[in-house]
């Protein structure tokens, strides 16, 4: 899909497939086109060209909307509604019966931790509470697919943990979760699969559940490191950098680690520290997105 607003290309060439039953993370810097992409999948925004299928039907179709939930970024609603009234309204818009809502609303309020605030009006809600009630309205009809746009922004650590648990519970009941986020540590512990979007295009995708094929970074502290020893590392590493005693190198192969250490020691270096660590999602993100060239 492609979306152009006037002169500005918001989404250049989005091509994406998400399997059912997984938690999918859609990552990208601000202005990369994440929200526009999600809005196209929801039918809120019409693509300038291209098309998408959601649950096997054209996106935006009323039948699709019956089976999806959506938490918009920065959820806002009529401030005079109470938490219960808001859920009742959204449940009725989803076609739920009064009898079903009588059981469902208290259960949902309990789930998002707002039971004691059920009769409070939205105008008295904090940003975090709005986020929680927004999540509840997205889940009211137990949708097969939930789109969450930055669901943990504005939440404290407890709130984030709660949202993470709720997201996992959705997968456990068989639903698919499409998560837009730039809180990478959150995504890393929640998502099964991620795709990176940059300047309106998917530039990479990773399966986080299978053995990560990412790079390993080694931070070492060594003295008496000869230039020959340093250049000899190139056969195992993809990069190496020496700054005083601090040596940073990257490799893609776990089995190369003992070889590298042995090479350093036999070439006469005194090694005080040798710490391999797998590249975090954040490192991967920065690597894929490249340097911040400023806005």
């Amino acid at each position, binding site marked *: 899909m492609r979306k152009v607003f006037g002169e500005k290309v918001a989404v250049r060439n989005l091509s994406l497939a998400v399997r059912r039953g997984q938690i999918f993370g859609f990552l990208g810097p601000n202005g990369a086109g994440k929200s526009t992409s999600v*809005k196209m999948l929801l039918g*809120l925004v019409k693509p300038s060209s291209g098309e998408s299928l959601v649950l096997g039907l054209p996106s935006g179709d009323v039948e699709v*909307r019956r089976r999806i939930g959506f938490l918009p970024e920065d*959820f806002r609603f009529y401030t005079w509604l109470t938490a219960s009234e808001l859920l009742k309204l959204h449940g*009725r818009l989803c076609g739920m019966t009064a009898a079903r809502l009588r059981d469902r609303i208290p259960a949902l309020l309990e789930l998002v931790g707002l039971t004691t605030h059920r009769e409070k009006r939205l105008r008295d809600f904090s940003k975090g509470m709005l986020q929680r009630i927004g999540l509840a309205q997205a889940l009211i009809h137990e949708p097969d697919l939930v789109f969450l746009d930055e669901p943990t922004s504005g939440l404290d650590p407890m709130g984030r943990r709660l949202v993470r648990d709720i997201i996992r519970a959705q997968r456990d009941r068989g639903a698919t979760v499409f998560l837009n986020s730039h809180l990478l540590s959150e995504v890393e512990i929640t998502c099964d699969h991620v795709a990176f979007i940059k300047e309106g295009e998917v530039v990479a995708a990773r399966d986080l559940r299978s053995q990560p094929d990412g790079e390993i970074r080694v931070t070492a502290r060594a003295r008496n490191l000869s230039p020959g020893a340093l250049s000899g590392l190139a056969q195992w590493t993809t990069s190496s950098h020496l700054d005083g005693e601090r040596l940073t190198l990257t490799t893609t192969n776990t089995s190369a680690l003992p070889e590298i250490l042995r090479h350093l020691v036999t070439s006469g270096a005194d090694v005080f520290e040798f710490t391999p660590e797998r590249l975090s999602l954040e490192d991967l993100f920065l690597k894929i997105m490249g340097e911040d060239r400023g806005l």
Partner: protein
Amino acid sequence: MGAWIMAGVTFREAARRKILWTAFLAGLAFLSLFATGMHFQAKDFSARTASPFIRYQAFSAMLQVGFYAVDLLAVIMTILTSVDAISGEIASGTIQAIATKPVSRWRILIGKWVGFAGMVAAYVAIMFAGVAGVGYFIAGALPPHALRAGMLVYLECLLVLTVTFLCGTKFSTLTNGVIVLGLHGLAFIGGWIEQIGSLTSSPRLVTVGVVSSLLMPSESIWRRASYELQPAITRSLQFGPFATSSAPSPAMIVYASLYLLVALSIAIYHFNHRDL
């Protein structure tokens, strides 16, 4: 079903607007002033035994002023309450949680329209009944066809509401307000030009007035309502914004109704096709 849910929540949302209650307070203040004026006029007349004709003329002139004030308040209130009904919810993102529910967009729009139409109906009914009540209970004067005139004023408000909705699907709140108030102003001036043209037998002025009424028929509905409110005998004597020397024909009402339907259809079309 979805449209009715939207109508209900929109009615409640509209009824909470401060501007509505300000308009009600302004209406009440106006009604008290109007009742006081009527009261003293009635007292003066009974003190100096005025001729029934003069009495009748004076009271119907005052009632005209009263209904005109109600008309103006209702139109302004309609525009100010509904001006951000669509554009405001698009700008704030509120519409996103609604438009992703299994309710088609045209139902959302119609539901919101019905909600506002209900709120405006209550306002017009209360204010119209207020003026008619003051006339009847204080001066014993009830204009002919008050109900018909009330319905026409309501039609005028619905027309203005629909144009506000139409512009709201296309423009920002501020632009929308400027356009709708501008259109109503155009219709108002056009109405005057037409009346002056009719009094001075100047067909070109009348044409200018008619064209402006075709562009925005709101003011000409009021002039039809005003015509309905006048006793037959005064129709030929009066002139001014509250009275009418050239009444728009019933065809104008048909035109205004069609105008409303077309505007509503275009609003639905825009809302269906725009990005939210």
